[in-house]
């Protein structure tokens, strides 16, 4: 084991977290970017969570001989020993094609003895070592956005309980992203090949039971109109940014607002639904989504705010995702109908 050297072996972890990221042997920094260690598979999502314009790198690893079971709707059923990582870095200038990226944290979620655990590792300013940071930290950041405007963010490295707050399914810690519909996309692998992820995972022994990708559900890519209608893309955006809490098994189930793309009841996904316990977050607007009228709708109000008592999601966003806000606003504008009162 090389502890971040060239010949380490990925480790499944145990009951407690390693003190430093390199001990997991899942990812390393190579030429300023996160690279998977040997045997570790990178993956990407159709519509990811917005995190203050962070650049993200995701990996999955399982011990040999075990694999995840396919699931049509829920997160894949991962075996004990699975290690997922997600690294968050910030480009100095989002207009650059080869920006300088400062890596802030790498989160590790691993499954041991039937339960998931989570911790994050904070990269040092020298970008040499990432050290466990269970207490979390607010990191002031500044960068240039895609329009050339300077952005100041208060990026949150979450505490361990804050990890559990979002990764919460009926009080059980769970991954969020790796659902079939969000994984069902092509990925470019380190060897240069491009392949559908469900196919690749199956070929690599990471996944069993998956149908042909054409028969699997597929989430729209929020910012690619070729992948879905305005409604499909807006709802994909709301799912990935909101449904981890706004689901019947998430923290915000008390609100009755459920934002998964699988939710079919318009009232439940906000159409003409009065906010519950929103406090100042209601913005004086009568319903979560007023068809045709974004200015009467609570959801855009919460997406366009950076006030922590108002902004949604509650954790992980300190600047406005202007493109995401525009998408949701456009969708609400496109809706027809009226609300009773």
């Amino acid at each position, binding site marked *: *084991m090389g*502890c971040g050297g060239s010949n380490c072996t990925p*480790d499944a972890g*145990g009951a*407690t*977290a*390693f*003190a*430093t990221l*390199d*001990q997991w042997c899942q990812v390393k920094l190579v030429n300023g970017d996160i690279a998977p260690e040997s045997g570790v598979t990178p993956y990407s999502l159709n519509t990811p969570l917005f995190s203050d314009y962070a650049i993200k790198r995701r990996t999955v690893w399982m011990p040999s001989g075990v694999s995840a079971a396919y699931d049509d709707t829920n997160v894949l059923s991962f075996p004990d020993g699975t290690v997922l990582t997600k690294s968050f870095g910030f480009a100095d200038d989002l207009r650059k094609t080869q920006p300088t990226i400062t890596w802030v944290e790498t989160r590790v979620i691993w499954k041991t003895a039937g339960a998931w655990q989570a*911790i994050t590792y904070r990269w*040092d300013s020298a970008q040499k*070592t990432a*050290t*466990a*940071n*269970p*207490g*979390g*930290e*607010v990191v002031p950041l500044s960068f240039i956005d895609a329009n050339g405007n300077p952005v100041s963010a*208060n990026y*949150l490295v979450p*505490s*361990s*309980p*804050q990890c*559990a*707050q979002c990764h*919460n399914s009926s*009080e059980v810690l769970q991954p969020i992203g790796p659902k079939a519909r969000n994984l069902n996309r092509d990925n470019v692998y380190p060897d240069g090949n491009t392949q559908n992820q469900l196919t690749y995972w199956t070929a690599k022994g990471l996944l069993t039971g998956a149908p042909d990708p054409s028969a699997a559900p597929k989430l729209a890519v929020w910012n690619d109109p070729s992948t879905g209608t305005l409604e499909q893309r807006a709802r994909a955006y709301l799912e990935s940014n909101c449904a981890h809490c706004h689901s019947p098994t998430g*923290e915000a*189930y*008390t609100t*009755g607002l459920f934002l998964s793309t699988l939710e079919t*009841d318009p009232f439940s996904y906000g159409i003409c*639904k*009065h*906010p*519950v*316990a*929103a*406090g*100042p*977050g*209601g913005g*004086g*607007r*009568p319903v979560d989504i007023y068809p045709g009228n974004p200015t009467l709708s609570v959801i855009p109000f919460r997406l366009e705010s950076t*006030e*922590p*008592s*108002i*902004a949604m999601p*509650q*954790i992980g966003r*300190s600047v406005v995702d202007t493109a995401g806000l525009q998408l949701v606003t456009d969708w609400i504008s496109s809706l027809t109908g009226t609300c*009773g*009162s």
Partner: protein
Amino acid sequence: MLRRVSVVLLSAGALALGACSSSTTPPPDAGAAVSCTSSVPPVCTVPAGATESSISSAIAGAAAGTTFNFAAGTFPFKNTITVPGVAGLTFKGAGIGQTILEFAGQTAGSGGISATLGNAALRFEGFTIQNTLGDGIKVEKATGVVFYQVQVRWLNAADGGPNYLRHGGYGIYPVQSQNVLVDHCDISGARDTGAYIGQSYTIVVSNNTVHDNVAGIEIEASRNADVHDNVSTNNSGGILVFALPNLQPPPDAGQPNDATNYVRVYNNTITANNTPNFADPSGSVAQVPAGSGIVMLAANYVEVFGNTISNNDTLAVANASYLVLNPSFNPLDPAQNPTGLNPFSSWVYVHDNTFSNNGGNPQGSNVYSPDGGSNGPNQLGELFQALILYGAWTSAPDVIWDGIAPPPYVAPIGDGDAGVPANPLTYYFANNHNANVTGSDWVNVNLPKVYIPGPPPSINVNDLAFDFYPFQVTSAPAGFPLPAVDAGILP
């Protein structure tokens, strides 16, 4: 051999470094550190000057049963303190005003303390938490939670200042919980409710002082609650007992829907709750007219007794239906009312209270808004204002009812009480002192009966007719007195 660091006992001061690290990394912020005993359960000492990093790390890794003893001093936080979902945690300070958790510099998270991961036997005691962005302390899905001698406050001006949005919705906010005790707390400045208990059961709210909030205390979508010996003053509304449709019921099989049942409000002092309603207009609490003492809305089996209710400019005690807030609501439509909530208050027994000087200046619309705009139409306020100003009495009634009754008790507009049984919603009134009465105790305004689907009716004071119901009883009606909450099962 690889070294592992135990998340359980990790604190910044004791952070173990990996065997392969080439350099030592200092803690993110230097300062005093939390220290924990190795006993089971551990006791963690939080000294004056302990850093947020040290405190949050220790809390993140807390083992079951850990007590955190905060020294006197002010502890600044930038991020929400998020409590892990382990049992038996206690957060104890040196007393209100002695240990201060200061969130004026908060830049991340939402709220001050968040314990939403399903804690058992959780206790907060002896500290002040102030200026949080969002709620003060939110607890969700707890089994056994105590707030004792906790102060929650916002010090920046609520009225007219630029910071009013920063006043959280709720001061103390247990939701979806059971066995809840809020005792000897002091809560002020909330832009919704000081002590809000929702979607929960087995609740005692006692000996608290709640002031300068929109609502002082609210019990919502909950059952088996005793609210007693509190002082609620200078809020917009003193004590609310509400149910609303589309809320999740409490987390057990004992209650099929989101109704509010079996609430005793007794021996409270509810006085001068005349602060302009500064709630966000979206919420139902924005509908509470300033100057309200006790308002029940869609609540059943409520006993209000032994309270001193004085100097509330609009009303002392009111019963209302959810239909006042949402006249187009059809309770029979499963899409609108999936849990089958009864939108009418019923079985309300108000007795042995002392009233004085209420209703002298009834407030209708909540035209007040801190940002200069209107706080929106307020049908509840307008209705009660019209009723109170009707003029049939020289002093306003202390106990009023919106007059909306369920089928078959439908009275046409303007015919007085013709066709309406004497007491369709089982309201009872007995032995109150100094109550303002004009021939009877409960008054009622007949409205179009709006439970029938169709266009919402407008409320026009010229269409109102007033009935006077002698709901006076000389002995407790059936079902009363309500049983006390079983304090033995409180933590």
